[in-house]
C-alpha cells in the first residue's frame, strides 16, 4: 500500500510517495519560507505523478522536528489534516532520525541541525539507525561524548559539531531531511504510527514567553 511522506521542518519542502519501499514519485525543493503555500500543491503534483488516489494511501509519514517551529507545525498540520479524511494513521519521525537514515547503513551517525544561538539540535544513532541518545539542543562543546570513535556527521549542524569530534567524517551531501528517505523507511517503521490523533511536535525548545514577573516558563 502506498505511503505519503512530508517534510517542512527546515530549509526545504519535501514530498514523496513510496510503495513497498520503492519511490513512486518525489519532489524536493530548497525553500527558506513559504512552506504553507508550497506544500499542498506539491502533494497534489506528487500524487498525480505517482498515479495514486488519496483513498489508496494507508499511511502518512511526517517529520515532527526539531526544526523551525513554524515548519514543524506546517508538516504536522498537513499530515493530521490528510489523515482525518481517510482515517489513515500518521507516523511521526524525528527530523534527526530522518537525516541519519540518509547516511550509509552500518556506520554510526550523528545528525545535527544548526539551531542558531550557538546551539545545535543533535542525536546519535548506531549503524542500524537506532537512536543511542535523545535529541538534544546544546552548544556543540556541551554534547555528550560520541558513542564510538568514528562515524558520519550529517545535517546543517554537522560542520559545527566536527571541531569537537574531529575523527568523525562530515557527509556534506546530507543537509536537509528528504521525504524520499522517510517514505522508503516508513513501511518498516509503521508499528510506531499513531492510529488516533497525530504524533506530537518535537520542538526541543520552550516558547520565548516571559511571565509578567520576569520568570520564564
Amino acid at each position, binding site marked *: 500500500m502506498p505511503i505519503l511522506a512530508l517534510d517542512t521542518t527546515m530549509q526545504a519542502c519535501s514530498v514523496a510517495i513510496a510503495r513497498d519501499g520503492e519511490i513512486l514519485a518525489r519532489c524536493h525543493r530548497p525553500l527558506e519560507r513559504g512552506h*504553507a503555500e508550497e506544500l499542498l500543491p506539491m*502533494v497534489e503534483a506528487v500524487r498525480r505523478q505517482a498515479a495514486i488516489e488519496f483513498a489508496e494511501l494507508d499511511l502518512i509519514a511526517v517529520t515532527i522536528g526539531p526544526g523551525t*517551529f513554524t515548519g514543524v*507545525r506546517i508538516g504536522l*498540520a*498537513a*499530515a493530521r*489534516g490528510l489523515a482525518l*479524511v481517510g482515517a489513515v494513521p500518521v507516523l511521526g519521525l524525528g527530523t534527526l532520525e530522518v537525516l541519519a537514515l540518509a547516511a550509509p547503513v552500518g556506520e554510526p551517525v550523528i545528525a545535527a541541525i544548526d539551531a542558531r544561538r550557538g546551539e545545535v539540535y543533535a542525536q546519535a544513532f548506531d549503524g542500524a539507525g537506532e537512536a543511542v541518545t535523545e535529541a538534544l539542543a546544546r552548544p556543540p562543546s556541551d554534547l555528550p561524548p560520541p558513542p564510538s570513535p568514528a562515524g558520519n556527521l550529517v545535517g546543517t549542524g554537522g560542520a559545527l559539531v566536527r571541531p569537537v569530534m574531529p575523527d568523525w567524517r562530515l557527509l556534506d551531501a546530507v543537509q536537509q531531511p528528504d521525504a524520499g528517505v522517510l517514505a522508503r523507511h516508513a513501511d518498516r517503521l509503521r508499528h510506531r504510527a499513531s492510529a488516533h490523533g497525530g504524533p506530537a511536535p518535537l520542538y526541543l525548545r520552550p516558547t520565548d514567553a516571559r511571565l509578567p514577573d520576569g520568570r520564564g516558563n
Partner: protein
Amino acid sequence: MIVLGIETSCDETAAAVVDGERRILANLVLSQLAEHRPYGGVVPEIAARSHVEHIDGVIGRAMARAELTYAQLDGVAATAGPGLIGGVMVGLVTGKAIAAAAGKPLIAVNHLEGHALTARLTDDLAFPYLLLLASGGHCQLLIVEGLGQYRRLGTTIDDAAGEAFDKTAKMLDLGYPGGPAVEAAAAAGDPDAVRLPRPMRGRDGCDFSFSGLKTAVLHVLAADPPPRPEDVAASFQAAVGDVMVDRAGNAIEIARRRHPGLRHLVVAGGVAANTHLRDRLGGLAKERNCVLVAPPPALCTDNGAMIAWAGIERLRAGLPDPLDAPARARWPLDPDAKPVPFAGKKA
C-alpha cells in the same frame, strides 16, 4: 451546500459545519484562555503550539456532531488572515489538506469578512448595511456593500477597543480577558463616579482612539485614595459607549449619503458581546431610525461558523481559492482605505 469552517487566527481553536439554509450543524470552540492567562495576554508561540495540537481533534468532533463524512462537504473554509501568523498557518494548512484529500474546493477566508457576514448567517440580512467591528485586534466602521465589497469609514488610530478593555482590566487587577472582567465589575459600579475623557467625540469622521482613555485610567488610579475599581470599570465602559455612539452616529449619516435607504447597524467582534455597548448602540439605532443587528455573543467572538458561512457565500459567488493561497498577518477588508500609521495591523 455544506461547508466546514476552521478558525485559528488568535486564541480560539474552532471548527464548525454550516449549510446553505443558514443552519449551524456543529460549532465547536476550544479556548486557550487558561494557557495564556498567566501571561496576561495572548502569546503567539503558545497559541500556535496549542492550535496544532488540537485543531484536528476539534474538526473531527465537529464533523461527528454534524453527522457528516468529508465526502458530503461542498467545501472547506479556513481563516487565512489577518491574525497571529503561526496560528493562521496551522488552520489554513489543515484546511488545505482536508480539501485536497476530500477533493473539495478550498476557501481561504478573511477573518474580518467572517465577522462582517455573520449577520447574514444569523438574520439573513440584505446588503448594504453598516458594520461596527470591534474586537481585541480591530475597531472599525465599514459599509458592507456586498460580498468582498467593504468601504471603511473609520478605524482606530492606536489601540483596538478590546485592547483598551484588556489594559484597563490589567490596571484594575480584574484578570484576563479584560472584556468580561470589566463588564462584570462595571455592573457594581457608578458610571458617573470617575471623570474620563471621550476621545474623538464630536470630531468629524468615524475614527477611534483609545490610548488616551487608557492613560486617563492610569492617572485616575494614581489618586490617593484611588477610586473603587467597580466605579472605574463602569466609568470606562460608559466612556467607550459614548465614543462608540458618537462615531457610529457619524457613520450612519455618512453611509446614508451613499445608500439613502440604509437601515441596519450591525455589531460584530468580541467587544460586541458586551451588553452595555449593545444597549447603547441599540439606543442610537432607534434614535436614527435604524435596526441594530447584534448576533448572539457566541457568534460575535471568534468561531468557525462565521468562517464556514463566509465560505458558503464565496463558494456561491464562484470564488474558491487555490491550494497555494497565502496566510496573511495583515489583510484589510477595504484595500483602498488609507493606512493608519500607529494602528499597524489593527487598521
